[in-house]
């Protein structure tokens, strides 16, 4: 494919156009963020040798899973041109409820008189403590709560057509305060191994968190790429009116997407709590929310809806965690992290703008397709 340019026909320019052509193909390809991450990691490795050792790689992976679980839910919401700021609050509520159900012992002085005393917790610890199927039941309850909060958001947005930004912002604040209210800000200790084991690396980096998170990503990929629901989501994201006329249950799709986002946040809450081995009513706050959305944006998600894939989000999350880990390893000020992350987000956005423009011009040539769905 020759670029019609009015440049002299010397050999050098031939090579030059080859390089430019190659970089353009890289820019346009879907795996750009992954390539950037790998190249970036190699550069850092040259300067900071211990970043490559086993335990650091394990740390990086361990940080990916909770963030990925939540980010996948956010991807679905972004595809239908929505946004879900309440995921952090879902993590907090589920962390508190999940652990209080199964905690083996609790300091009564701290817990007496708070709202869950006698409801979820008694003198002997959580009401499910010691129960053979205690942990699985707790996990199911946690997932249901996540979905319930997602359902509330979805209904407000789909049925009453309230703006997604404000609805999920207010539910973030409300449920965030609710989590603290449940235990009057006390953390919950003594969580049985069955629950904390989820984050335990057993053979090599493999841990239940890894499996759960990857499974969630695969399910999301199948839904988005292969199922009716996925196609409906793209259609609702790009043109809700045409979708409605074509018989797509637009309200149903929206409600599903926000419920799924709540579900993913609950999964992320479980993975985080397991890793920290403590039930905390404050799970990350605004920073974690910015990370989830930042990872999606770096992955290539457009806020306009209708554009995006699960694998892009995976690449975005990996890039995000590698970046954060590398800056930590360099013992740089953590304030620098914010500047670098902000810069990375702007770079990703600029490349996205360039990609669309180039993809437009490259559309005639059979390059890998970019943009919406299959």
């Amino acid at each position: 494919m020759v670029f019609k340019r009015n440049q002299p026909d010397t050999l050098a320019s031939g090579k030059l156009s080859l390089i430019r052509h190659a970089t353009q193909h890289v820019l346009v390809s879907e795996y750009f963020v992954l390539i950037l991450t790998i190249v970036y990691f190699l550069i850092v490795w040259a300067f900071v040798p211990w970043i490559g050792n086993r335990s650091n790689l394990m740390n990086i992976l361990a940080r990916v899973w909770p963030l990925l679980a939540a980010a996948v839910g956010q991807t679905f919401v972004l595809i239908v041109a929505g946004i879900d700021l309440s995921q952090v609050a879902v993590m907090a509520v589920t962390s508190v409820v999940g652990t209080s159900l199964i905690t083996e012992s609790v300091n009564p002085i701290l817990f007496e008189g708070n709202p869950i005393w006698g409801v979820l917790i008694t003198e002997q610890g959580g009401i499910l403590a010691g129960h053979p199927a205690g942990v699985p039941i707790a996990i199911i309850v946690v997932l249901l709560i996540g979905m319930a909060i997602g359902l509330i958001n979805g209904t407000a947005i789909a049925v009453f057509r309230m703006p997604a930004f404000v609805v999920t912002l207010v539910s973030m604040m409300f449920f965030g305060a609710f989590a603290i209210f449940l235990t009057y800000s006390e953390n919950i200790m003594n969580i049985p191994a069955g629950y904390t084991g989820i984050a335990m690396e057993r053979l090599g980096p493999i841990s239940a968190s890894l499996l759960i998170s990857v499974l969630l990503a695969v399910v999301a990929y199948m839904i988005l790429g292969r199922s009716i629901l996925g196609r409906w989501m793209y259609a609702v994201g790009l043109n809700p009116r045409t979708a409605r006329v074509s018989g797509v249950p637009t309200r149903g799709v929206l409600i599903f997407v926000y419920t799924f986002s709540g579900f993913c946040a609950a999964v992320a809450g479980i993975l985080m709590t397991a890793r920290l081995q403590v039930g905390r009513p404050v799970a990350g706050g605004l920073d974690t929310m910015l990370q989830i959305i930042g990872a999606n944006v770096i992955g290539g998600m457009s806020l306009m809806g209708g554009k995006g894939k699960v694998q892009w989000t995976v690449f975005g999350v990996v890039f995000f965690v590698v970046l954060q880990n590398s800056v930590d390893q360099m013992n740089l000020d953590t304030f620098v992290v914010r500047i670098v992350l902000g810069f990375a987000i702007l770079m990703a956005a600029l490349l996205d703008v360039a990609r669309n423009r180039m993809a437009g011009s490259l559309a005639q040539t059979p390059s890998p397709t970019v943009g919406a769905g299959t």
Partner: protein
Amino acid sequence: MITRNKVYNFALNQTTLLLFAALFVIFGSLAPRFLSPSSFQGILYASSTLGIMAVGITLVLLTGGIDLSLGSNMYLTGVFGHLLLNVVEVPVWIAIPGALMVGLAYGALNAVLVTRLKIVPFVATLGTLLMGRGLGLVITRSISIDFPDSLTGLRNVAFLGIRLPVMVMLAVMLLFHFVLTRTQFGRQMYAVGNNGEAAAKAGLRTTRIVAGAYVLCGLLASLAGVVAMTRLGRFNPNFAAGDELFAIAAAVLGGASLFGGIGVILPGTLLGALMIPMVRSGLVFVGVDIYRERMVMFAIVFLAVFIDSIRKEQMEKRERRTIMKVDVEGESR
């Protein structure tokens, strides 16, 4: 003759005002002192910073964009104010304009990212949010900064019982109410927000208008930062983190739409800005238990947004033109 329809119309247009009044009465009945004029002045004082931010956000929302970087802008303004006042030791009347320049530059950066480099506003301002806060923290080594009495003394300057921060807010709201309703730039902003393509076809300088919105929003955020410096006297590292979310909520409560073209400073944005501080103050007056206070507040905010969206839907239904009505007006059958 007040017909049922007229009352219904009024209610439909002024839901925020009615909700505001209802809450005021409820809190008043539970804690009579809440109805005193000085308590209302306290609410105005508490919402002076949020009000100025809400005006800036309303401008950006009008053009169909969004600005997440207000909190970092305010913090950075405080940091440069600190450098000018405490390090370079410049007098207050130089430090304040100097600090405002920072906000202006911040808004200009947002404007370039959105209008020149065509980045989606949410993403552009998310990037500057992080970079702005990071820069501020690097300068202060994330240690909280104090402002001299020469600056904080301004807060007690009062005129006819209205304190300076409140005066600044009301002045900003009046000024921009006029800008939006009485100047060409203002009306063109509504046009760009309503239909960007048509605005370009009609020969309006759309990029300049949108850029103007972001620059003004940056300047107003910076002014809110200066007001906060005088009010609080001290900024710790996470000062105003997340406040932009409240400013957006305030603008939406005031009737602004996230899709552009709709939104009024008075009474809309003013009422929206007073809503949250009023509820917060009411809950303190009533003495709601400390753990329930935040939940009750956000439940009320959710209710307010819910009522506002019902209002918008009803208005839309009434606006939809009918075939038969035209006939009644039109030629005889």
